[in-house]
């Protein structure tokens, strides 16, 4: 009786009994199994897995470090730019009331943060403090210095906006001369533009390198399991079924290396925090250099996992084409 029952269970019809719901449950179950099995395979050869993760992690940490550097150079540029006010020398015949009126007009502009008036006497006093000038100033009958307006552009204004402001100032009748150190700001902006491109190109190349690292690890994994893959295909497994554990391996590689990259970036940030604090002190606390944004740090592991998946997907598709 038991044998008959076993026979019925073991042999032929009916077929197509797995309902849609059962298939989905089984599909999910296989995803769970694949995720666990691929993780166990990674753990089974710790050295190889750690090396792959370390290489990927470093490759992903480098663009983050450059991004951090570039962001801080940008901030440094803006902070230093705040000290680089535009000096507007008024015509010598301009009286204090006219200087104040002009300062108010300029202060109302949207591209100006602040205007400070330096009187001729203040200018003279500053000159007197400079070595070698005191004797020469004594010989003057009267103060030859004009009123000077120190115009501070709005923080964050780019080189083009500052150049427009300087042009407007030069066109004013009451202005004798405009002294602007905007050229260095222009150069800095240009350099930062180049830096941004370099970081983007570097990030792309290193992401490609990470993709290749995952791809190679998965390729070796597939090669070492060539026989198993052959058996799976012979008993009716689809390519997706066979590929699944390798895709999860790619995801794990990516995820762990992404976490490592974020930790490395944080370590770099921490290592820089001391010198940055000193630099900030040297500028009377005006410098506020920032770290990597939280969203970026949180985005790195999933993005790296997606990269790992992509690498595994490309390689496994290519490798499985050669299988039975």
């Amino acid at each position, binding site marked *: 009786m038991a044998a008959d029952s*076993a*026979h019925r*269970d073991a*042999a032929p*019809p009916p077929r197509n009994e797995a309902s849609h719901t059962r298939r989905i*449950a089984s599909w999910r179950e296989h995803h769970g199994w694949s995720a666990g099995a691929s993780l166990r395979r990674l753990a089974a050869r710790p050295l190889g897995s750690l090396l792959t993760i370390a290489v990927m992690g470093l490759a992903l940490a480098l663009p983050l470090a450059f991004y951090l550097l570039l962001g801080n150079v940008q901030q440094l540029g803006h902070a230093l730019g705040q000290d680089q006010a535009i000096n507007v020398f008024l015509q010598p015949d301009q009286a204090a009331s006219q200087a104040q009126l002009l300062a108010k007009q300029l202060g109302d502009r949207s591209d100006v943060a602040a205007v400070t008036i330096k009187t001729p006497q203040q200018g003279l006093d500053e000159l007197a403090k400079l070595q070698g000038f005191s004797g020469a100033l004594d010989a003057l009958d009267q103060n030859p210095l004009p009123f000077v307006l120190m115009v501070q552009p709005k923080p964050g204004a780019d080189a083009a906006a500052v150049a427009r402001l300087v042009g407007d100032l030069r066109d004013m009748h009451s202005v004798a001369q405009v002294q602007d150190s905007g050229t260095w700001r222009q150069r800095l902006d240009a350099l930062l533009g180049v830096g941004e491109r370099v970081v983007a190109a570097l990030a792309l190349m290193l992401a490609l390198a990470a993709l290749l690292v995952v791809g190679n690890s998965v390729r070796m994994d597939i090669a070492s399991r060539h026989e198993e893959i052959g058996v799976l295909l012979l008993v009716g*497994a689809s*390519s997706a079924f066979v590929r699944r554990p390798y895709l999860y391996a790619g995801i794990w590689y990516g995820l762990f290396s992404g976490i490592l990259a974020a930790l490395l970036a944080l370590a770099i940030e921490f290592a820089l925090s001391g010198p940055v604090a000193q630099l900030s002190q040297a500028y009377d606390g005006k410098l506020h250099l920032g770290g990597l944004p939280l969203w970026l740090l949180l985005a790195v592991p999933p993005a790296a996992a997606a990269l790992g998946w992509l690498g595994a997907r490309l390689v496994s598709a290519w490798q499985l084409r050669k299988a039975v």
Partner: protein
Amino acid sequence: MIQFEQVSKHYAGGHEALSQLSFTIPTGEMAFVTGHSGAGKSTLLKLLGVIERPSHGSITVDGQNLAKVRGRGIPRLRQRIGMVFQDHRLLMDRTVFANVELPLTIAGIARVERGRRVRAALEKVGLLSYERQLPATLSTGEQQRVGIARAIVARPSLLIADEPTGNLDPQLAVEIMGLFAEFQQVGTTVLIASHDLPLIKRMRKRVVVLDHGRLVADLAAEEVL
């Protein structure tokens, strides 16, 4: 039903493994394909499993022309065919249970049902008590029976076996063939490639004889002496 019509298979270099082979095996029949080494027995089974494609002619299995089976159709077809190999092709890092379970997992059968069917298949081949063991701890004959359990667990309509008793002693070989005969009795079409003539004679089933890729004899069960 299996139908070969004028099937030829040429390999690169001009070697002709099969030449204009035509025969039909009705549903639920058990047949042997025999011949000397290189006669084309394994090639014939590979064509049935879509492991290889014919150079000419057509092969039909249960009304489905294998030439038209492409892409996702191949795994679906293989799920309907149970395959037994001389070298067992077991996954040595998985237990006996997991090996037999594989076709059911692939077919999307629920876990409870899988467990029931795997145990039934293992009971059928007399290996229920070995379910937690790794294949490497089993004898060659036991490993072959695991391979058979895996081939029948998904209730295939067609069971093909390539030299399934090649490495077994005569008594075990008879037992294994007895198992195949039982599957035939419940409606499965069984096709076995074997060069073990004494065993084939003993089974008294239809025999297709190949020589250098050509069909030289097609003997009905009663014609086998």
